Structures are given as C-alpha cells and as structure tokens.
C-alpha cells in the first residue's frame, strides 16, 4: 500500500509543481512588487552582479512577483500569522485600526547622513530649514508591543537635530503630529502622512519660513479616491483595515500654478501637474501628488513676490508642497532618491534665499541617499 501511496503522492505533487511553474512563466503576473531593497536589473546582469549572485537574487525576485495569485497568498499568510503568532506580518504590525511598519531599523546611519547634510549646507549662504517627519509607526508607537518601543523615531529625530549644524533651523513636526494623533493625519495602510497631517505641519513650517499660513476654512477639499491601499497593505494584503481617502486641498481664491515642469536625469523637461489624477489609476495612488517621480520639479505660481525656495525632499513632501505654492513665486524641488550626479547639474543652490529639507525620518536609515549632495562637491574641491 505504501508504495502505491508514494506513487500517488509523486503524481499529485509533480502535477501541482508543473502547474505552478506553468503559471509562473505563462500566467498573468500579479504585479505585486517585492518590498524593500529590490535588485536592480542592470546591476544584476552586470559582471559583478553575475559574479556575486545578484542575478540569482533578481531571478528569485522575479519568480516571486510573477507567482500565481501572490496577493491572495499574502493575504492568507497575514491571516494565519496574526492568528497563530504575534500580530506582526511580514514586518508590519496589524492592528484593527491601522497597519504600522514594525521593522525598526538600528538608526545606524543617522549621524553619517547628518554630517553629509552639514557639509552641503556649509557651502551655502542662505537659510536652511530642516523638517524630519515621523512615519506612522513613530506617532502611533503606543500600539506596538513593548519590545518594539525602544529606539523610537522621536529619539532618532532628536539625535538628528542635535547633530545638524546650529545654523540649520530645525522644525519640530513630531510633537505637532503626536498631539493631533486622534485625527486622520496618517494613512491607515501606508507609512506616510495624509494631506491633513501635512497641513498641520505646514502651519508651523510656513511661519518659520516667514509667512502666515493659509487658514483651513479657506480650502475646498476634494476626496479624489477612497480606496487607497499603500505600502503597508502591499506587504500584508490585510483587508480588515479600512482603505484610505486621498484628498486634494484647493484654495479657490489663492494663487494659481502657472507651470509645473518635471525634468529627468538628462534635464529633458516634461510638463507635469501638481495633482496628476491619471496616476490614481496606477499602482500607488499617492503618486498623484506632484505627478511622476522625477529628480527635479519646477513650480511657477502667480504669487508676485519673486521669492524662491528650493525644497530637497523625499516622498513625504509630495502632498506638502501644494501648500507652499501660495507663498512663493518659484519653488524648485529636488529628490536625491532619483538624482544622478551633482546638485549643480539640476539647480544652483546659490540662487535661492531659502532651502527647505523635508524628509520622512525613515530616509535617514538610507545609507547612500544623501551622497549626491556632497560627492561632486568633494570632487570639485580636489580639482
């Protein structure tokens, strides 16, 4: 009997494995991306990538993304894990109300990044402002089990601010957001803040920059989407948490946008939009803010004060920048994440009287993010 059963097992399993293999190669990809450090295709197939196994990793990632019904599988995975172990699924803390990133970094690169920013700013004569925004796990860390509440984001923000030069003016976003945490200031399915969260911080930031904030009641708020599922959802497919709402804040009587131009790394210009609604149909609805991801975006407004602002930012700033457009005639936005080469290639910092750094504190965990700010500077000095 055993022999027969083994043969049956073999047949069933071989059919199952071949069927899955068929769907991996010929089925429709679920398109659910791999979270975290993705292996770059070009790097994977370079000589060093082939030597050190990056290409194997790349293929492995491709197989995972193309795996049939991956999103359903992750969803089942979440259900099983939260039922039988902690409420932590693939590094995400699953609460009834919201999802929170539970992958607490060791915060090891904060001071190196602070040093890079200091070096960049020492070359610049205008005023530099720095706003480090906590992610949702920083503001709602009381939801976490105790052992995840060490090494908090507020500590990281404090240590970053203490390491930044004195003439960089740091602006506290953490306490504002913490105080308002009963409100809808963070997405339930994403690590980032909502437009309302951004607005609350904007009120303080703009005062420090020398303007009075636009009052809340002057805005008309459009709910452009109510089914936004962000980066935390993609890691769990946990659908018991309500989907998020995406808002656009319009100021009908305020200044208008004259132009919004995005530039790619070859400095080719593309006309863009402050809110690109076509991207609501794409994978990440949050991309709607400020449109396609570009290293440089230039905004020109009808504000008649000839004030210029340079914003150096990550994705947290995307829903924040629209509020700034009421105060400056020119705002240029650079994103180190997408830049290749020096800052000077895109903009000349000396042309701006103010520079605003606006980053999610999690960007400080990125080892090489800020390198573009200084490497070319050093090369120039050594020449």
């Amino acid at each position, binding site marked *: *009997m*055993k*022999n027969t*059963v*083994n*043969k*049956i*097992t*073999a*047949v*069933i*399993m*071989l059919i*199952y*494995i*071949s069927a*899955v*293999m068929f769907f*991996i190669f010929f089925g429709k990809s679920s398109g659910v991306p*791999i*979270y975290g450090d993705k292996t770059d295709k070009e790097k994977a197939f370079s000589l*060093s990538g*082939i*030597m*050190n*196994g*990056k290409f*194997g990793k790349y*293929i*492995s*990632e491709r*197989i*995972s993304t193309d*795996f049939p019904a*991956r999103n359903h*599988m*992750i969803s*089942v*995975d979440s259900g*099983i*894990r939260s039922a*039988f*172990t*902690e*409420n*932590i699924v*693939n590094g995400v803390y699953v609460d009834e109300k919201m999802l929170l990133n539970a992958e607490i970094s060791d915060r090891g690169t904060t001071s190196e990044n602070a040093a890079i920013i200091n070096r960049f700013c020492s070359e610049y004569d205008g005023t530099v402002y720095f706003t480090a925004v906590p992610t949702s796990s920083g503001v709602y860390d009381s939801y976490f*089990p*105790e*052992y*995840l509440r*060490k090494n908090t984001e507020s500590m990281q923000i404090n240590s970053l601010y203490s390491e930044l030069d004195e003439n960089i003016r740091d602006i506290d976003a953490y306490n504002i957001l913490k105080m308002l945490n009963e409100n809808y200031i963070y997405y339930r399915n994403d690590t980032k803040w909502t437009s309302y969260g951004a607005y609350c911080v904007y009120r303080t930031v703009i005062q420090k920059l020398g303007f009075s904030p636009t009052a809340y009641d002057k805005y008309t708020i459009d709910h452009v989407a109510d089914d936004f599922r962000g980066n935390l959802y993609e*890691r769990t497919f946990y659908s018991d948490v309500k989907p998020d709402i995406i808002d656009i804040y319009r100021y009908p009587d305020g200044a208008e946008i004259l132009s919004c131009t995005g530039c790619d790394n070859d400095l080719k210009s593309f006309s863009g939009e402050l809110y690109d609604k076509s991207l609501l149909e794409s994978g990440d609805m949050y991309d709607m803010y400020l449109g396609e991801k570009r290293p440089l975006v230039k905004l020109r407004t009808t504000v008649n004060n000839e004030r210029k602002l340079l914003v150096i930012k990550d994705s947290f700033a995307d829903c924040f920048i629209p509020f700034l457009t009421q105060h400056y005639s020119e705002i240029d936005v650079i994103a180190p994440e997408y830049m290749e080469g020096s800052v000077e290639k895109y903009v000349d910092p000396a042309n701006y009287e103010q520079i605003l750094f606006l980053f999610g504190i999690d960007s400080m965990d990125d080892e090489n993010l800020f390198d573009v700010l200084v490497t070319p500077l050093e090369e120039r000095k050594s020449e």
Partner: protein
Amino acid sequence: MIYSSLLFIYVFFPFSLLAYYVTPAKYRDVTLLVLSMIFCAMNGVGFLIFMTVYTAMNFAACHLVGKYRKNKGMARSIMILALVLDISAVFVFRSDFFIAYRELLSIPEEFFPVGISFFTLSAAGILADVYTGKTKHNRNFVTFALYIIFFPRLIIGTPLRYSGFRRMLHSQHTGLADIGTGITFFVKGFAKKVIAADSLYALYSASVSVDIGEMPVLTAWLGAVSYLLSFYFTLSGFSDMSAGISRCFGFRIPKNFNYPIFSQNVRCFTARWHIQASQWFRQYIAKPLYSISDIRLYKDIVLIAVGGLIGFWYTFDAGGTICGIIWGIAITAETYFIKDKHLQATGRLYTFIIAVICTVFMAGESSAYSIKYLFAMIGGNRVLADSQSLYLLKSYVLILIVSIYTAASFFRNIIVRSRMKKVQNIITALSPVIVISMMILCTVLISYRGSSEILLLKM
C-alpha cells in the same frame, strides 16, 4: 538560492528532475554535476569558481596522496598541505578574525561560500581515507566533484563518507515511488523550517530585544527554548529537505536527526543529534585520539575537547566552544554518576535543561552576555514575568506547543508504533493530501519574501 525558496521548489527542482530523467542512465552523473554547477552559479559565478578551484585542488591532492601512498612522508606532506588549505578556507570565511585576508584577496564582503563547513568535512574525510588506504582514490573527476558539490546536500546537507556516496551513486533506485517518498521528506523539512523554525526565531528575537539586566525569568526561558527549538528545526529541516531531494534522484541519505530534544539522557541526545556530523568527528578526530592511550582520564579529556571542537565548528566563536565543552562534561559526568539507564521524566528534564544552557552559550553574542542571560533565567533580575513576557507567551503558545509536540517523538509514535493498524492505514492513505496541503501552506508562508533564508548560523 536555497531549498526553501520559490525559485528552487517551483523552477529549479522540476527542471532538474526533468533533465535527470530524460538523460540516459549512463550520463546521469554528468547531468547531476552540471545541475549542481548551475545551482552554484545561481548563488554567484564567484561561488562556482570557488567551488571548482576547491574541488580541483582536493581532487589533485587525493590523486597525489594515492599515487605516493608508498612514500609515506610525501603522501603525508601532501595531505597536510591540502588539509591546511581546506581548513584555512573555512577559517577565512567563517571567522571575522580573518577579515583582513578576505580584503587582501579582494573578496567582496557579501561573498560567503554557503555550506563550507559541511563540504570541508567531506573533503577532509576523503583525504584522510585515501591516506589511510580505507578508500582507493577514484580517478573519475565527475564522481569526486559530485561528492563535493552535489546540490541536494550542498546547503547544510549531510556529511557522508566518500565510499558511501559512491555506493549510492552506483546503486540509485529511481522511480515514481522514490520521487513520492523524496517529496514527502522534502515537504516535512520545508514545514519544519517555515512553520516552526521561522516563527520560533521571531519569538527568540522578540525575547532577546529586552535589556538583559531587566529580563524576567519567563522571557529568558522563552528566548532560550525558542532558540534551541528553532536551531533544531532549522538543521533537521534542511537535512530533511536535502535527503528528500536526494531521494528524488535515487540517493538514500541516512537520517541526520532522530528526535533528540527530549531524550532520556545526554548520551542519548548526542546519539540522535546531527548524527552524520557527529559520526564524522568521532571517526576522524576522536577515534585516532582515543587510540593513543587507554587511561580513562585521558579519554574523558579527549571527549570533552572533541565536544568543544564540535561546538566551535557550529559557531566559530568562544560561545560555541563553551557549549561543546559543557556538553562533553555532561556526558562524562553521566557515565560516572548516573548508572540508571532508564531515567524517564527526570532524565528528559535534566537533558533538556543542559541543552537549554548550552543553547544560551551558542546563541549569545558574547560569553559575558550568556552568563548574564543564565542569571536572568534563574531569577537574578528579580522579575518573574512582566506584561511583555506574558504577551509573548500568549502570542506564541500554540507554535510552542506544536513545536514541542513534533520535536518529541509522540507524533512519530502514533504512526510507527500504533498497534491500531487502522490508524496507520488512514494516515498512510491521507498522506498525499497532507503533503500537498503542507506544501501549499508553506508556499503561502514564504509568498511574501519568496524564500525563507534565516539559517541562524553562517555555516
């Protein structure tokens, strides 16, 4: 690429099975070698080059040792030279003490020849066998290379003797029933790794994130027990996966673990833990040393020292060595003081406690930390439990119970020793369903990351 990954299970494995079975029997060795080389290359062509050079060097050394067997001095020098090279390779890669050498050889930081601790045992074993004349050197490079890089046992597989491997190679039983048995084994190992080992490792990481000076007794115990079980399920899971894949290609690899965790005494535990690796150390290190003298004290010292060596082989640091020494002392003490061979409950309990103590040294980042940890386990921090430890206990209690149940031999006993033929038949008849369900469940559990790669130790 490791066995517990979607890439391996759903692409490489079926592809290699197909390639193997469509090849005429005469060329199947070559097919296996090519497949093994592809497997290596998927982990980096650098790794493949390393393995090729390593294998060629050992092949040449074996050849020369065999050739100059009559000239003892010459043969010994060649053997020692090859052994030194093999062992230095392990040291250079496994110990951070030699990081400067890696830089000197401009080896990239992330490069690690996975499985080096295991295939070095194989290589050293065959050198010794050829030198002593136990095995005749085979001039067939394919067989030799396959012995070193055979992909189903490359990653934490079972160290085998060359003669045994060759025998298997020439008497492969292949067929549908073997594939069925192999896949069943594989799925068992896969489940051990993904369901038990990974969850327990999460419990361990959560436990040890508490400050050691404030750790309550319960948290400390949860941490140590979960590490021990996770370590066991990782090693035995990989052994099962490795044996399962090998079986699909007709290789019957002997058992590596036989439910050691809840053994009746330390000796029994040793005999059931990592059987093939322990046998290697017994065969090639302990036995020659034992033969030097018959004095009992000397033999005890050798036993403890070999224990330390095995511990060192696991971790390459002081913690592992201390763990091995404690184990050696426990075995020795047992032979002196405990004569009763049938200690039931108490025997299981003290064996388990010694295993937990050893685990603390194996897992600890430093010996000082491990001592503090033991202190916390016996209530040195004057806290029995806090909300955190209760939370962890509550979250993981089910996983712990299931893991302990399967780590003990209860489940096997139901199947094997059950007198009720009916129960056995039902379980056998249901096994295809159980196997495919487990496979789907484990696939679901790794669907997010695409693989389950935590190995606890870089072996």
